[in-house]
């Protein structure tokens, strides 16, 4: 690494409320990331539903797509808000980080802004264009939404990848110099993060939407409308969930290679160990994992596909450079636990579907689908806590610490409390609104229109 030594490149900021600043940022991400799932994955599901209508001419699919597109617009509108707040916070909370590195990674955000813009334009046309522009054009206006959802999340994740594996600049005489933004953009570390997140989007959106109709199913609403609205998102989520296990394995191995200390935090591994054991489950309290099942050599096997491989422990770096293990380990465990559960649920569904060509009959299945959505959101956030808190104390891995990036401003707790209250209001309003939308009667679709539109 040619920018070493970096220990004194940046000055510490006198900020007594660093933890609150980090929590405030985390709160905003916690609101934004589930919405991102609906910006990235949901449009594809909606468009698939509209495609079914075009293929079959059955207006039920059109009714569903139209209803869902309204939800999509509401959630996108809220996502615009939370995304704007995140942009504000990057500067408000971490001005020194932006000042030093804005020119290194900013390009990705500029391109992401473009994606976001395209998405906003076409989501407007798509949602307000029902019955006003021709069926064919309407379907076509959905495609840019899907594409820009992919490119947008891709670009944001390249920045996160860069923060974990910084490149594209040198530090000479404590100055960031020789900036190569394209190298930073394609830093080669983000691919696993991108696919992991993209698939997570389909799991979260798919199970959340399916959960709504699983509840309806339990209440006896099993007509064609509810059946289609259940099966499509459920199938999407159930295909994605097992895939996520493989992607998670890939992500874990990449972390093992590039950020051994983060991996050590995942596992609560204090000391560098040859043939390290893997502890399944359990809760990390007071410096040790309680209640987990320990499998000898398993961590070495998982991380390096070699039971005798040496896994670096937390002690490989000074204490001041170790992440807070408790939070990271417990979040990691929660993600693994939920992710595995969702994959099992998915396997049960796919098995019934392909072997018996029908939906599962037991009411327990639908109860589990109903809680799978919220559980997937928990896993999503736990996953982000794992990687973000696992990077601590660094904001730019092994280059700049969060203590050097944070604002020197006063009043961080006031801002945090204000934002928490405002976001609580926003979230309540959105839930209230979606419930009301769900109770509205469906619009009547005229089958004659299908023929007229060809």
């Amino acid at each position, binding site marked *: 690494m040619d920018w070493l030594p970096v220990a004194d490149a940046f000055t510490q900021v006198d900020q007594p409320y660093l933890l609150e600043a980090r929590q405030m940022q985390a709160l905003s991400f916690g609101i934004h990331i589930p919405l991102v799932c609906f910006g990235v994955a949901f449009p594809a599901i909606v468009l698939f539903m509209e495609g079914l209508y075009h293929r079959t001419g059955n207006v039920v699919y059109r009714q569903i797509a139209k209803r869902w597109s309204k939800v999509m617009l*509401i959630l996108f*509108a*809220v996502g*615009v*808000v939370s995304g*704007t*707040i995140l942009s*504000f916070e*990057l*500067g*408000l909370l971490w*001005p*020194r980080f*932006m*000042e*030093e*590195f*804005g*020119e*290194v990674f*900013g*390009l990705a*955000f*500029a*391109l*992401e*802004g*473009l994606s*976001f*813009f*395209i998405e*906003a*334009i*076409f*989501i*407007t*046309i798509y949602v*307000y*264009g029902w019955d*006003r*522009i021709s069926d064919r054009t309407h379907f076509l206006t959905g495609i*840019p939404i899907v594409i820009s959802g992919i490119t947008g999340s891709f670009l944001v994740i390249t920045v996160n990848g860069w923060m974990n594996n910084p490149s594209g600049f040198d530090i000479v005489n404590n100055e960031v110099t020789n*900036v*190569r*933004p*394209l190298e930073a953009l394609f830093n080669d570390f983000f691919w696993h993060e991108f696919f992991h997140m993209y698939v997570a989007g389909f799991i979260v959106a798919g199970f959340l939407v399916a959960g709504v109709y699983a509840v309806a199913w339990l209440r006896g609403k099993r007509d064609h409308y509810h059946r289609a609205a259940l099966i499509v998102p459920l199938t999407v989520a159930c295909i994605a969930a097992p895939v996520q296990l493989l992607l998670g394995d890939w992500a874990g191995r990449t972390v093992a290679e590039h950020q051994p200390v983060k991996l050590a935090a995942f596992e609560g591994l204090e000391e560098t160990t040859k043939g390290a054991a893997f502890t399944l489950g359990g809760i990390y309290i007071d410096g040790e994992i309680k209640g987990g099942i320990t499998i000898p050599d398993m961590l070495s096997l998982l991380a390096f596909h070699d039971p005798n491989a040496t896994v670096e422990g937390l002690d490989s770096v000074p204490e001041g450079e170790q992440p807070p293990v408790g939070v990271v380990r417990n979040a990691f465990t929660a993600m693994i636990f939920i992710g595995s559960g969702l994959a099992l649920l998915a396997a049960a569904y796919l098995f019934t579907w392909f072997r018996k060509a029908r939906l599962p009959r037991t009411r327990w299945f639908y109860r589990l689908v109903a809680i799978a959505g919220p559980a997937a959101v928990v896993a999503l956030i736990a996953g982000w806590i794992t990687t973000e808190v696992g990077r601590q104390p660094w904001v730019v891995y092994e280059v700049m610490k969060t203590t050097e990036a944070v*604002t*020197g*401003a*006063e*009043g961080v707790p006031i*801002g945090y409390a204000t934002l928490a209250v*405002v*976001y609580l*209001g*926003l979230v309540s*309003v*959105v839930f209230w*609104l979606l419930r*009301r939308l769900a109770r509205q009667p469906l619009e009547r679709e005229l089958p004659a229109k299908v023929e007229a539109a060809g």
Partner: protein
Amino acid sequence: MAVDLTLAVLVLGLVMYSVLGGADFGAGFWDLTAGGASRGARVRGMLKRSMSPVWEANHVWLIFVLVVFWTGFPKAFGPVMETLYVPIFLAGVGIILRGTAFALRGEAATIGEARVLGATFALSSVLVPFFLGTTIGAVASGQVSVPADPDSPFSSWTNSTSLYIGALAVATSAYMAAVFVAADAVRAKLPDMVEAFRKRALGAALVTGAMAIVGIFILRDDARFLYDGLTSGAGLVVVIASAIAGLITIALLWTRRFALARFSSATAVAAIIVGLVVAERPDFLPGELTLDQAAAGDSTLVPLLVAAVIAVAILIPSLGYLFKLVLSGQLDQEFHPIGASDPESTR
């Protein structure tokens, strides 16, 4: 060269946000001042009908401004954010409120709900332009030092220039909203609404014009270098252009040519922003950081400009399509008075 072009991109984003986002916030101002539930019902219905479809697209301009700012001028971005965090944060709160009101639009089923919604909308419409305006005013009048001084969270933006620009932003927002909605009302064939918003537009134009004249004296006392920049050379040319565009708008409103008035009113507002930037040059943060010092290196600016060209190439047809649909009425919403006897929501 690359620095100037990047500045131009930044100013373009700021102008677009001020015009399109501003018109949206201005609608909230007219909602606030529309009067009681029954008297204001038609005005509120008209506002909602006009403002619904393009909200997100308008507001993405702000994100555009932020990313170009921190990528293109990172050395100024950090100190600005670290110094002016109070108004910027309050603007952020306003943006959350506006987004909430947007998500809720048309969903209010009772008078009570409509009132809460209206209050949220109105509050945000004052918060956001005012505090973003004060932020611009504080930057323009040299309140940001390098390195940042985070210990003056209030005095940095409560000088008269900052407060004045904040108030001016609220006024120009209301002014543009009235012009835009009047034009929409013509298309919606609602003559009473055309007259209602024509009156508002004319009133707002006069108030904004008067504020501009008062502003000259405020700047002379509080930010002399800004005053000098605006009263000589290129700055003066831009100021005169703004005044002419404002007068043309009044004439167009008087003669009921609203479609043209949209453009002239937007030009008048754009010229104010351009004028501030021209008056600052070659400084970004007056007395502290020149444009060149604030800017990223060419290795960043050139790809950023390439990205901007790509963005323009993609955005112009996309936005063109959106505005074509909007202006030809294809995405129009139905008109429903809000808060009167008919609480039924539109689709």
